[in-house]
């Protein structure tokens, strides 16, 4: 991300006003901008759905509830480019003709909150009534609040639990009104698209990757889609630390996937890199203990609303503990399979549907770590 002085003048917002709502939506559609929170849904299509939904009242919401373990790119953007983040939301709110816009930010992000609050005040002064109010909502909630229907429930002051979809928020969202929900990184791209045009953006698509774990220089790095894990680890993050060899990486956070050393050169595309989190683990790390950490995370973060997720996420750590104890590992592994399939097929929202991903992939790719204790390689996390 290049720092830009013009973002403080909100020039892109004024350009957007001069283009008209339809002009802005057409430009975003033509740019091919996709959701950067993980799903990769075309942003322009979402904007049009909200803008054309038959309703007097619409809302625009920026999802700043970054909570996927290993992800810190939105925090980076909000702390370092708060003006541009707010400007992105202003453009979206204008395009869909929102009555009110919200920034939904997790409570832990105090520094980002302060930066955004200042930028919001500057933006409101600069816009001088030509954009709706932007309210910053500090969430007391957990991981589930990043799921957009749970986020909107929470914003309305209800229990932070997801709803059955459809209807999607673009049709029926906050207070039952059409609501645009976009990730921070999605919106931060819109000022550049407005200033430089859709064609420029198509040649300059960048995704932010949050790289952490056993690397020398963890950080946030911008790469075009198609980047490889090898580039991220060895060129951007300075390679492996402590002289250890790479063993595997968890890509896309705890709900993402596992990449082995043999998969380091495969190009990462939308749908594969998720939200861009990359947690790197070296040869001293144990796949079973990694799986336990991931399973315990979901057990703690499941909201408990639906049975497959509530029961599945709470059983998974127990089954992994049995494997860890070295008893009945074959039976426990078979149960994990059945449980994972049930969770994927029948959970209400993305949390339960994706919770088993990393555990299953670790078992598939590092079966030796999940064998009876005598057959394991000695490694510890």
């Amino acid at each position, binding site marked *: 991300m290049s720092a830009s002085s013009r973002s403080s003048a909100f020039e892109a917002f004024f350009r957007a006003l001069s283009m008209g709502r339809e002009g802005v939506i057409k430009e975003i559609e033509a740019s091919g901008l996709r959701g950067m929170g993980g799903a990769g849904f075309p942003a322009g299509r979402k904007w049009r759905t909200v803008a054309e939904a038959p309703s007097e009242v619409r809302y625009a919401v920026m999802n700043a509830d970054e909570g996927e373990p290993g992800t810190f790119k939105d925090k980076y953007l909000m702390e370092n480019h708060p003006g541009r983040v707010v400007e992105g939301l202003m453009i979206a709110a204008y395009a869909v003709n929102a009555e009110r816009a919200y920034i939904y930010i997790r409570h*832990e992000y105090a520094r980002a909150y302060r930066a955004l609050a200042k930028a919001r005040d500057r933006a409101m002064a600069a816009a001088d009534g030509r954009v709706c109010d932007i309210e910053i909502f500090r969430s007391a909630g957990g991981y589930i609040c990043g799921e957009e229907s749970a986020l909107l429930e929470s914003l309305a002051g209800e229990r932070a639990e997801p709803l059955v979809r459809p209807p999607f928020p673009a049709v029926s969202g906050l207070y*039952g009104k059409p609501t645009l929900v976009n990730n921070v990184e999605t919106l931060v791209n819109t000022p550049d698209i407005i200033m430089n045009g859709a064609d420029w953006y198509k040649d300059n698509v960048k995704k932010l990757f949050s790289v952490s774990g056993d690397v020398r220089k*963890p950080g946030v790095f911008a790469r075009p889609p198609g980047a490889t894990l090898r580039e991220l680890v060895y060129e951007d993050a300075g390679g492996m630390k402590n002289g250890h060899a790479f063993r595997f990486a968890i890509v896309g956070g705890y709900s993402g996937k596992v990449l082995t050393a043999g998969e380091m050169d495969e190009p990462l595309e939308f749908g594969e890199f998720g939200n861009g989190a990359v947690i790197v683990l070296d040869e001293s790390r144990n796949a079973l203990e990694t799986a336990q950490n*991931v399973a315990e995370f979901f057990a703690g973060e499941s909201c408990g609303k639906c049975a497959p997720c509530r029961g599945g996420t709470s059983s998974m750590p127990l089954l992994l503990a049995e494997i860890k104890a070295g008893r009945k590992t074959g039976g426990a592994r078979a149960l994990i399979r059945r449980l994972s399939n049930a969770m994927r097929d029948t959970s209400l929202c993305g949390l339960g549907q994706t919770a088993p991903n990393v555990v299953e992939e670790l078992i598939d790719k590092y079966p030796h770590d999940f064998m009876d204790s005598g057959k394991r390689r000695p490694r510890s996390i």
Partner: protein
Amino acid sequence: MPERIQPRLLEELERIRERHGGIPSSDRTNLAKKLKLPLTQVEGVASSYPLFAEPCAKYNIRLCKSLSCSMEEGQAISRAIRRELKISKDGESLDGQWSFAKVNCLGLCGDGPAMLINGREYTSLTPEKARAVIHKIKEGK
């Protein structure tokens, strides 16, 4: 405009939490009366927000337990804090001044291991550094 009593509930809960570090049960009852909501609704909403479940203490320590932080001495840091403050099994110090919880990702994976104390970030922790931070807070107040 839709009725906006519910968002006020979260705002009020946050105000109480800021004052007490958590939500005392007497305050829940008072809040229900004040907003003319059933107590079950106040309890129901509050209980789905982890932040409102924290014990009432002057200082809340939240240590990250997600992978990138816990890989580096996470266990040792946790032990050091527990021992330093004599944290009991339910996560509170003997004198009731401190609460301690291991939480999920704080977005500080690039500078881990990390913790928050009353919202303030402490990064690149070691057991020694964690102890030093606690000492400083104890002496400063």
